[in-house]
């Protein structure tokens, strides 16, 4: 019996070894492939339903517009866009030389269909229904007639992929529509297969692509639910580059990659940022002097060093990072504990009983509730420490995201740390206003500012029709932030994207990073 057992085990181990060796041989694949590793896992092969797949599909189904390196919006599928003087009519001129991967030509009709379709069927595009009165085709242009001026329309259209009418008009519930096989697209590549079990999206060259020919026969997006494994895969050369929408390669793992000498990095300033938000409806956060003092109490460089390992810079009081359009240089935030204390005592916050804890205006010791989610534990820990140095006690209330949203919406907190994505900074009236405007609602939105001056600014931006007008408003918004501090940026981070040195020609745009059509047309093996 024991011998039999031994043999059984030996056989088991042998089988394993054979498999291991066999697997290594099978790893070699012919043809030129570019493999990109991403932590954004595609959970269902639903082009409109899955947000990760939505981003990845930008390669096969490019957007109407795109964001240029300087933050301005330029044409992609559309050659250019025109807006009428009153800002009510937008015209997008569609390029002539795009063909779907099944041979059909891309027409303005496809574009019109796409936005009508989305307005109808996608809840996240519900604003189209509210804003756009009608869409029509005028020669090679698609005309959007709005019911009120909307200056950000071209920006919005830098995020929606264009769908082939002849395929999608038959699909009634696009969110539930799952397609694991080919997805018809008109980009340089089209999706040939979505394999959620293997975690790979396969792209193939679009045979009808008329532009400059890309260098690779196929592109594979390998998704990893585990960041460490992705790092290992990069290091081992199993994937060639890293991509995460609005996210950087983990700062802690960069050095390791650098040490291998095989990688280069694209570093870009992030539009999104991590910030401290305050409940302005409650004492003492409603007191501007208190907020000002607080802004001096935070050790920004330490937060930057610990949370982002120094990949970024100490922010300005103006909140908006310099990578955004129409950035205005405002007061640099600085750590000055004595000044913070001074400001507090000037404002009347004193430690009357000498226990080291400051009293509020009501004479009672200040005790703040710091709402936090698991993702922000580290910065929260730090901020709590700074508050303590200042003589303010804060109690961590660690909650899951759902509770966070509920409590934030009910204003049941004193402070919290959250972050914005690039799109988050751009949405609504741009420059981060979407997070503070009290008239808005939504998941990550704090809606804590109901100052009429601020709300008026937002409305102004939305109705602005010229670039110079926008710039004027942008400066005003940033000045407002700097003066009123509704939120304090903790750091402006950089997005670091590593890629294997073997591949060159990457191009990164501010909105979607290296994942854009231009980039994939240029990347080649050195």
């Amino acid at each position, binding site marked *: 019996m*024991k011998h039999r057992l031994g043999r059984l085990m030996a056989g088991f181990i042998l089988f*394993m070894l054979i498999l291991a060796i066999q697997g290594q041989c099978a790893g070699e694949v012919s043809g030129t492939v570019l493999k990109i590793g991403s932590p954004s896992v595609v959970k*269902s092969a639903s082009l409109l*339903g899955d947000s990760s797949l939505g981003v990845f599909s930008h390669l096969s189904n490019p957007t109407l517009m795109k964001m240029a390196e300087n933050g301005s919006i330029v044409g992609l599928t559309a050659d250019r866009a025109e807006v009428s003087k009153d800002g009510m009519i937008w015209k997008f001129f569609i390029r002539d030389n795009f063909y779907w991967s099944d041979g059909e030509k891309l027409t303005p009709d496809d574009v019109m269909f796409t936005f009508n379709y989305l307005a109808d069927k996608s*809840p996240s595009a519900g604003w189209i229904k509210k804003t756009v009165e009608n869409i029509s085709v005028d020669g090679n242009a698609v005309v959007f007639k709005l019911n009120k001026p909307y200056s950000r329309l071209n920006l919005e259209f830098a995020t929606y992929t264009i769908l082939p009418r002849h395929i999608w008009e038959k699909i009634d519930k696009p969110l539930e529509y799952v397609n694991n096989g080919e997805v018809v697209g008109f980009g340089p590549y089209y999706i040939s297969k979505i394999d959620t079990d293997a975690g790979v999206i396969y792209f193939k060259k679009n045979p009808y692509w008329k532009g400059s020919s890309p260098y690779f026969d196929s592109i594979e997006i390998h998704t990893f639910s*585990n960041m460490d494994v992705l790092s290992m895969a990069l290091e*081992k050369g199993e994937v060639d580059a890293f991509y995460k929408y609005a996210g950087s390669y983990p700062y802690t793992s960069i050095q390791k990659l650098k040490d291998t000498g095989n990688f280069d990095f694209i570093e870009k300033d992030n539009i999104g940022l991590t910030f401290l938000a305050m409940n302005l409806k409650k004492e003492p956060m409603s007191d501007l002097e208190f907020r000002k003092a607080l802004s001096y109490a935070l050790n920004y460089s330490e937060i930057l060093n610990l949370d982002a390992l120094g990949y970024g810079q100490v922010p300005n009081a103006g909140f908006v990072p310099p990578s955004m359009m129409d950035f205005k240089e405002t007061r640099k935030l600085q750590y000055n504990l004595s000044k913070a204390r001074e400001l507090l005592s000037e404002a009347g916050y004193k430690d009357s009983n000498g226990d080291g804890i400051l009293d509020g205006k009501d004479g009672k010791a200040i005790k703040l509730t710091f709402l936090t989610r698991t993702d922000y534990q580290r910065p929260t820990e730090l901020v709590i420490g700074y508050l303590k140095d200042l003589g303010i006690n804060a109690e961590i209330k660690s909650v899951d995201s*759902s509770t966070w949203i*509920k409590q934030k919406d009910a204003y049941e907190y004193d402070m919290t740390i959250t972050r914005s994505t690039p799109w988050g900074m751009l949405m609504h009236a741009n420059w981060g206003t979407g997070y503070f405007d009290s008239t808005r609602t939504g998941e990550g939105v704090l809606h804590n500012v109901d100052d009429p001056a601020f709300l008026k600014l937002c409305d102004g931006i939305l109705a602005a029709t010229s670039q110079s007008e926008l710039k004027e408003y942008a400066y005003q918004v940033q000045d407002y932030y700097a003066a009123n501090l509704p939120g304090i940026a903790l750091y402006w981070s950089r997005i670091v994207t590593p890629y294997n040195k073997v591949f060159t020609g990457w191009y990164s745009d501010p909105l979607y990073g290296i994942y854009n059509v231009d980039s994939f047309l240029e990347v080649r093996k050195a």
Partner: protein
Amino acid sequence: MSPAKKRLLRCILALFLIVSLNFIIPRSMPGDPLTNLLGEDAYLTEGSASELRSLMGLDLPLHEQYLAYWRSILSFDLGYSYHLHSSVSSLILSRMKWTLLLAVPSLSAGAIFGTILGGLAGWKRGCGMERVNTAFFLMIYCTPPYFLSLLALYLFSFRLGLFPLKGLYSTGSFLDIAHHLMLPILVMSLFSVSRNFMIMRGSVLVERRSLYAAYARAKGLYGNEILFRHCFKNALLPIITIIALDFGFIFSGALFIEIVFSMNGMGNLIYDSLLSRDYPVLQGSFLIVTIMVILANLLADLQYSRIDPRVRWQ
């Protein structure tokens, strides 16, 4: 009532309880039951929210909701995931096969090797080799499964490069799938072996003190003969039920292993829905896992009565 019938009744009751629990939890938790039922990532406008509310029957009295809930469960409708844009039951169906592919070989290997090695260890308590075995499996037993898988992944896949880093397959051929699954299966087998090992060892320690074992020795059986001719089967009896009950625990271990090895099975499904608070998926998965565990228990009972004549006799 015969024990078998009693057992069946209890299984049904357990099922009933779990289904009811699934009904109660989202409705009794603080907050909007709609959010609790749909998960918070569901993009909803006010209009569609109230529409959904009536669609899901949340405006009905509780008992009617409960009945409707049962009706949908019985038609295998576990709800809809607004997060993954798919019906929960089809999601689970597509994920379950991978989990089973991981769990079934591991659990079988765990049962076979665990009981044999554990039996030998219990039999030869104190002998050098068995001490090493026991210490080894005890250490595994004491290590959380996710930690074990992390170490294995780091060592075998990354440092030694023997196995792929993630996923279920790359080409999809049988050997390729096996190659991808080998390490997770190995880790999970180790985990399962260690649990069965400890139980079996204890069980054999009890059995070897029994009179029939002594009598077998007096009959002239030598060394391991007594174990394999006599004690093994008897020691296995309590194990069968324990393995079945342990199934839930080991299955949970599979969840952690899937998370670490990025396998698209139930574990990752549960973990993802946990992170995104996709409650319909969370509940549906929990329901299915429970059903599987209960089925395993029933199966164990059947097996038990096949082996133990005393049960049949009653």
